[in-house]
Every structure is written in C-alpha cells, then in structure tokens.
C-alpha cells in the first residue's frame, strides 16, 4: 500500500499542488492528464528525483519520504526509450538485479526469463540501439519489472511508439504486468482511451492537482467537474455557455436547447457540455461545417452554430465539405450541465448525474 499525503513541489515548470492518494497493491492506476498536468512530476516526486516542499510518502505505513532513490523499492519506465547503450539487452535487464547483490549467473538467468516474457528471448546479446523502438521499450519494461519492486511506474511508456506498436503493446500490457501482484502500478498517459482501457482506477490530474479519481466507466459517464470532462473526452467535449430561464435550457438568447429528461437547475448561467456523440446529422439545428477529419472508421466534424462551436462524430467515412451548411439534432440524454464554478449539476429524471 502506498500512501501519499499533501505532496507539493516547487521550482519546476510544473508543480504538484497538495496531492494526496492511497494506492493499493495489485491494482493498475492510470493517471490521465494533459501535458503539464503534473503526471510526470508526481512520478518523479515519488521516485525522489524531484524534491518535495511539503508532503509525505508512506510505503506500507513506513515513511520513505527522505529515503535515497536507490532504496525506495520503485521502478520507473520513461517515455523515452532509455536503456544502457554500452550493455547488451541481457545485461541491461540484469543490471538492477546485480545492484541488488545477485550473482551474475542468477541475475542473467532471471533477466533471460523476463526478456522471454516480453518477447525478446532471441535478442539477448544485441545492443539496445540494434532494436526497434517497440523492442527498446520492452527492454526498459523488462528491466523495471525484473526487480519485482513494490511500485512500478510507467511514464507515458507508449507515447513515442508508432500507432501499430502502441496498439500491440497496449493489448499486451495487462498480461506483461500480471505477475506483479505485490506491486502498485502507476501508468501515466495523455490518452483517455488508454487510461480507461488499462486502469482499474483512473486518476485525473489538472494543474498539478488530482481533480477526480474512480472507476474509468463511472468517471466517463459522470465526470464530477468540467475540467475532468474536458480531460477524459476524446474527441474533445464541447462547452457552450448557456442559461436556464423559466425551466427551459437555452444555448443563447433565442436558441432553445433540448432538455427532455433533464432536471434543470434554478434560473441562471450554466455550461452546456456536448460530447461528440450527442450530435447527429439531420435535425432542427443549423450549423456551418468548419472542418471535417477522418479518424480511422469515424469522421469528426467541427460545427459552427450561431450559439457556439461543437464537434460531431459519425461512424464511417463521410464526406462533409467545409463551408457547407448542415442540419443536426442534439440528444438531450447526452447533454451534461456544469455550474459556473465547474461542478457537474446534471440531474436526470430517473437518476442523479
């Protein structure tokens, strides 16, 4: 069990601001946030690479805040594929075991087993530079896992891989770390899909703070704040500054928004959030097409309404010419409402939002 309390850092481009959390062993925690949200800073602070101004780190009730880096029982896989260039793949993975005091034969045997697990059994004597990017990152992963450390941290490990390799490693990742049942696994990413797919628990960071945490599906369905909704939505969620008047929801003056099934708050300003799947072709709302992007099996269309901008996503590759007008419908069951302070105030007739 890893407990962090009020972690705060200073004197860096990104700072941590009072981060507290309790991590349990055997679980994968995905830390989601945009660039500069403080994800890497959190891992580096845990590792002891960045100094804390305030806060404590406890591993199984033992305070390790002041422990030297090498004695923290943690492993870190960097976003860049960092390996020891002067050592063979086998010696790279055996390196931490040798530092633990294991003899060369035992260390190499364990390293060989781990490399076989990650699919590099036939490249033991190669240098890291002689491997592809994906293979180099597997070496880094094998080196981090072979130590069986209590905390395994992966800092956007797939970010520098090409699409295919990313998909492949993402699929394999749960299997690769399955043996680390004693470890807390922290996995940072900027991609909501990756965070939701890999994490037992998802932690959302923004501006150096943890702004939300919970089961990925719950967080996606009911983001507690506007910032959380923004971070976990891909393609991006659209926010329109509207208002409620006389129990009706308006995008802007004269533009009534659909609100069937929504329990509207008292009169006043609200932020109306539209996920891309809340908008569909054909309907009563007229918009101009700003941009049309093909994204694999889907098409993302940027729409300019009279009351603001929003993004629509349709299945398949559809041709939408920029500049043309289009009529769309907006599904009220996919609308979310946020108060001016950013809190989620979506209430539906049959459930709480």
């Amino acid at each position: 069990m890893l407990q962090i309390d009020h972690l705060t850092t200073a004197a860096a481009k990104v700072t941590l601001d009072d981060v507290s959390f309790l991590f349990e062993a055997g679980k994968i925690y995905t830390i989601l946030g945009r660039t500069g949200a403080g994800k890497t800073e959190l891992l580096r602070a845990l590792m002891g690479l960045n100094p804390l101004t305030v806060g404590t780190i406890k591993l199984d009730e033992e305070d390790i805040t002041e422990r030297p880096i090498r004695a923290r029982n943690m492993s870190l896989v960097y976003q860049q594929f960092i390996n020891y260039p002067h050592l063979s793949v086998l010696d790279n993975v055996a390196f931490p075991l040798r530092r633990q005091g294991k003899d060369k034969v035992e260390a190499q045997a364990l390293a060989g087993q781990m490399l076989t697990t990650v699919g590099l059994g036939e490249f033991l004597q190669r240098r890291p530079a002689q491997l592809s990017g994906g293979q180099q990152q597997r070496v880094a992963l094998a080196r981090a896992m072979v130590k069986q450390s209590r905390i395994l941290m992966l800092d956007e490990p797939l970010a520098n891989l090409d699409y295919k390799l990313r998909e492949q490693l993402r699929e394999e990742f749960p299997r690769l770390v399955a043996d680390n049942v004693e470890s807390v696994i922290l996995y940072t990413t900027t991609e909501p899909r990756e965070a939701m797919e890999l994490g037992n628990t998802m932690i959302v960071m923004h501006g150096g703070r943890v702004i939300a945490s919970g089961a990925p599906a719950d967080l996606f369905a009911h983001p507690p704040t506007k910032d959380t909704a923004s971070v976990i939505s891909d393609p991006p969620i659209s926010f329109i500054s509207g208002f409620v008047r006389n129990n009706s929801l308006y995008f802007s003056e004269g533009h009534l928004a659909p609100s069937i099934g929504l329990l509207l708050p008292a009169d006043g300003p609200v932020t109306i959030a539209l996920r891309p799947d809340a908008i569909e072709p054909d309907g009563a709302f007229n918009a101009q097409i700003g941009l049309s992007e093909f994204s694999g099996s889907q098409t993302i269309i940027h729409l300019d309404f009279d009351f603001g901008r929003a993004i629509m996503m349709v299945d398949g590759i559809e041709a939408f010419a920029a500049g043309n007008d289009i009529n769309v419908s907006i599904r009220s069951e996919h609308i979310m409402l946020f108060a001016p302070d950013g809190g989620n105030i979506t209430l539906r007739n049959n459930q709480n939002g």
Partner: protein
Amino acid sequence: MNKFYHTLKTIFLLGWSIFVVFPFLWALSTSFKDANAITSGATYIPWVDFEPSTQGWTSLFTTGSQGINIIGPFIDSAAVTLIASLVSLILGTLAAYGLSRFEYRLGFVKNSDITFFFISQRIMPPIVLAIPFFLMLKELGALDTIFGLVLVYIALLLPIAVWVMTDFFSGIPKELDEMAMTDGCSPIGAFFRVVLPNSLPGLVVAGMFCLIFGWNDFFFAFTLTFTETQLLPVSIVSLNSSVTPWWSLSAFALISVAPLACVAVIVERYMSRGTMSGAIR
C-alpha cells in the same frame, strides 16, 4: 555533371594531400642528407639526387660536439605530458560531470560562469601566465623540475579537459543517471557504472587534446626550465647553432611527431559519438 564534380573533388583532395604530406616527405628526405647534400641545391630522392647519410639520425643519440642525446628529453616530455594529461583528464572529467549535472550558485556565479572561468585560462596570452608560474614554482622550489612542469601543465590542460567533457556530458541524457539510481546505484555509482563507460569518445577526444597541447608546448617548457630538465621542443631549438644542422632537425622533428601520430591512429576509431546512439530516443 557528377563525373565532373568527382574529378574536381579528386584533384582538390590530391592537391590537399600533397600540401599536407609534403613537409613530412621533405623532412624525411632531409633527415638522410649530409651538409654537402643540403648545400648543393634542392634535392629530394635519395640515391638519385643525393647519397643518403644516417648522420642526422645518429647525431640524436650521441652526446658531445657530434650531436645531442634526445632520449632524456624524450622521457621527460613523455613523463610530463602523460602525468599532466592523466591528472587533468581525471580532475576535468569529475569537474565537468559536476557542472553538467548539478546546479551551483555562489552569489551571481552560476555553472556557465564556472565553465567560462575554466576556459578563460586558455584565453589569456601565455606570457601573462609565465611570470606568476615562474614565481610560484620558485617559491615551491620546483623550477627546472619535472614536478614543477607537471603542475603547470595540469593548470594548462585542465581547462581543455573540463571544456570538452562538459560539452560531452551535456549530450548524455540525465535520465540515464536517474535510471541507474532507480536501478540501485548511488549517484557516484551511476557515474562510474553508466555515465563513464558511455563517455569513452569524449574521454578520447579530451585526452588527445591534452596530449597534443602538452607534448607540443614550447613556451612554458622553455621559460620554466634551465639545465636539469629539458623537454623535447626545447631540445630541438637547442640544436640550432651557428650552422643549422637541418638533417638532425628533420630527424628530430619526425621523432617528436611520431608518438602523437601513433596515438591518433590508435584512438581514431573512438573519436565519434556513435556509442551514445540508442541511449534515448
């Protein structure tokens, strides 16, 4: 068009090679001449243009009026250069690692200022340094000694080592040290086990520069020695009397160049940064 450029390139490189190699060939040819061959006009090819003589070479290993024994100066030069280069390389590497990895702040003085301070030692004209060096060695009783020259050469070579190694360490990602520490190394362990083995090309370049500057220095070797200690460059000059023995001078020049040429050939393959590829992508 390509053929034209290829021909042009070949001609240029051929011309440049002749320009570079000719002085050595000339020195080699001259080292086998005697006084008659020297004074009878420009001649180049032994047995054809002149009768070869080994007088130039034998005079370097005899003492007295017939020549000068260069074995002593050669050993002195080698000792001073090797010891000073080694110490400079060790101290310079440690200093450079510190400068590239840690932030120092002493009032307004920062890392870049400290690095510049080291380099500034080489910017000053040697004559400015000669008098203080002379006085300091006199106080230490180290004038005209190998020890004194080693001290001075360390002061002269250290900036070169710091400069080259700081630049080299800056190219090695800090994450490599961090990773070594997360893998169980102490900071000093990370340096010796990971950073240093990956710094071989930088060490070779810095070592080469130290050897070249140390071996070729004449000015300090001349001003800080008298009779007890004599380095190779000073010995060469002392050959020059009322009659310049060009044959001995040429042989001497070739001998003094030989060690550096051998070192350059041996370490040439290390003088690239190739080994860092793959450390980080």
